[in-house]
């Protein structure tokens, strides 16, 4: 059966990575028609046509579709829904705004943040902030699904899908866009950052903490420090991660020159992926690290920074 994929279009351009990952998931369900809509969406449509696995592209351009306002975007999708059994989108904030609205208008349940596709009706999704994975089977005729992109690989390029232009539906006129503000590029706050790079006493001096800062900047990460580093004056107090400092649980935690005293572990052990770089191969930090690199940090950290820039 056919799948309608709401492509992620931002200011007229396709967000390729998120869309291509959702295509991988959607292709498991049937032939994928990608819908690109916005105030301008033609260029996004062309980009979407090149994604392998996309068999058709629909482009809808209208002022009312700019900035992905939920009411007009949902109305457009509903007007197309008859031809599709699945309506799918990458689980971005834009799609999460739109897709439940689509589902309700079609009298179906939305299936949010799908991390695995078992069959056309059966999906896996994380619940309780990822503390459990639930498998659900939909009894609805139409399945409205958002895809957790981090669990699917992006589809490749090489597609040559035909592009059709369609018109928008009447603007319900319920909301209008005022402005967008992109997040400032300053370092994120330590406790809410998705990535944290922390330095320990092994860094050796306040001056050498610049190595940690450079790596953090390359990753858009917050900076942390062990208590030993703070006590030695290498890093300010409010960077301290651990029992007496901040407790963090980022998606990626990189511990550099940190031995892994239990006080420190208490502050970061719930991080999703832990990387440890330390020259002492017996350092306790390696016992909890997903990836350990036994190396001199003064060589390894600049190299890593260069690779991740």
């Amino acid at each position, binding site marked *: 059966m056919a799948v309608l994929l709401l492509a992620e279009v931002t200011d007229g351009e396709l967000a390729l990575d998120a869309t291509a990952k959702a295509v991988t998931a959607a292709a498991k369900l049937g032939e994928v028609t990608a819908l690109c809509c916005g105030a301008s969406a033609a260029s996004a449509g062309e980009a979407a046509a090149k994604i392998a696995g996309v068999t058709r592209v629909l482009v809808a351009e209208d002022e009312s579709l700019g900035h992905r306002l939920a009411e007009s975007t949902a109305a457009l999708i509903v007007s197309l829904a008859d031809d599709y059994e699945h309506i799918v989108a990458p689980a971005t904030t834009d799609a999460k705004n739109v897709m439940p*609205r689509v589902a309700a208008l079609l009298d179906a349940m939305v299936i949010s*943040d799908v991390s695995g596709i078992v069959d056309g009706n059966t999906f896996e999704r994380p619940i309780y902030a990822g503390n459990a994975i639930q498998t659900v089977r939909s009894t609805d005729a139409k399945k409205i699904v958002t895809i957790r992109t981090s669990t699917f690989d992006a589809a490749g390029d090489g597609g040559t899908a035909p592009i059709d232009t369609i018109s928008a539906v009447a603007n319900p006129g319920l909301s209008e866009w005022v402005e*967008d503000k992109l997040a400032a590029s300053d370092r994120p706050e330590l406790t809410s950052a998705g990535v944290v790079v922390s330095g320990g006493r092994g860094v050796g001096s306040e001056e050498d903490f610049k190595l940690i800062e450079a790596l953090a900047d390359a990753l858009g990460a917050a900076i942390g420090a062990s208590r030993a580093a703070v006590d030695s004056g290498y890093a300010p107090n409010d960077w301290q991660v651990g029992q007496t400092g901040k407790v963090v649980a980022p998606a990626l935690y990189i511990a550099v020159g940190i031995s892994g005293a239990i006080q420190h572990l208490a502050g970061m052990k719930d991080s999703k992926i832990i990387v440890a770089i330390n020259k002492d191969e017996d350092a306790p930090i*390696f016992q909890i690290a997903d990836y350990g690199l036994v190396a001199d940090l003064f060589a390894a950290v600049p190299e890593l920074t260069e690779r991740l820039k």
Partner: protein
Amino acid sequence: MKVLVAVKRVIDYNVKARVKSDGSGVDLANVKMSMNPFDEIAVEQAIRMKEAGTVDEVVAVSIGVKQAQETLRTALAMGADRAILVVAADDVHQDIEPLAVAKILKAVVDQEQPGLVLAGKQAIDNDMNATGQMLSALLGWSQGTFASEVAVDGDHAVITREVDGGLQTIKVKMPSIITVDLRLNEPRYASLPNIMKAKKKPMDEKTAADYGVDVTPRLEIIGTAEPAARKAGEIVGSVDELVAKLKEAGAV
């Protein structure tokens, strides 16, 4: 203006969810339950609007098991004026899906005629992030999701929304459904006198049948499992290998 605030009783955010050994769901028996943290922020927003004079009545609604009356009591203690409990399940393990919740809320809205509905952006149990959007669709009202700032001014509201990569500001027509994000406010604690007063505030008890809503789930739960256990760590030989592993894991 009257505000309706939808609140959900969920596992306390400090409690770690544990999957039942038979895989039927997360164990909620003998677990501390509280108001969904996002809904607390919605209640706080409603009370602040009342304190500012833009709202004259705050009605809290909860849909679920009978014990959700404790959650409503919390909303009343924070400052809501009255509460409506809609009993739609007997077993604490039965989650009422957002679609059914939205249908019941629509019926409540039809009766109560509020000028604004506030709710949390998602519940921390099923993480669906759907009820507000669905209610908005059923009512044909505007929606402002993931709000970090809300200013209601007569027939419209200006809402700043937390979206991927930053903030978006939109202007919506009233009446509207607004779902709130973490940074909108810091909810107050209920004071001792207000906790004592809450038990005297009115709480209506209804059932899903009273509103003619069928709450049969559309999604059948096949199974619930623990997430894949943390893989044993490995020592990598070089920066190159480390970068490759991180890319493979989707971490960079």
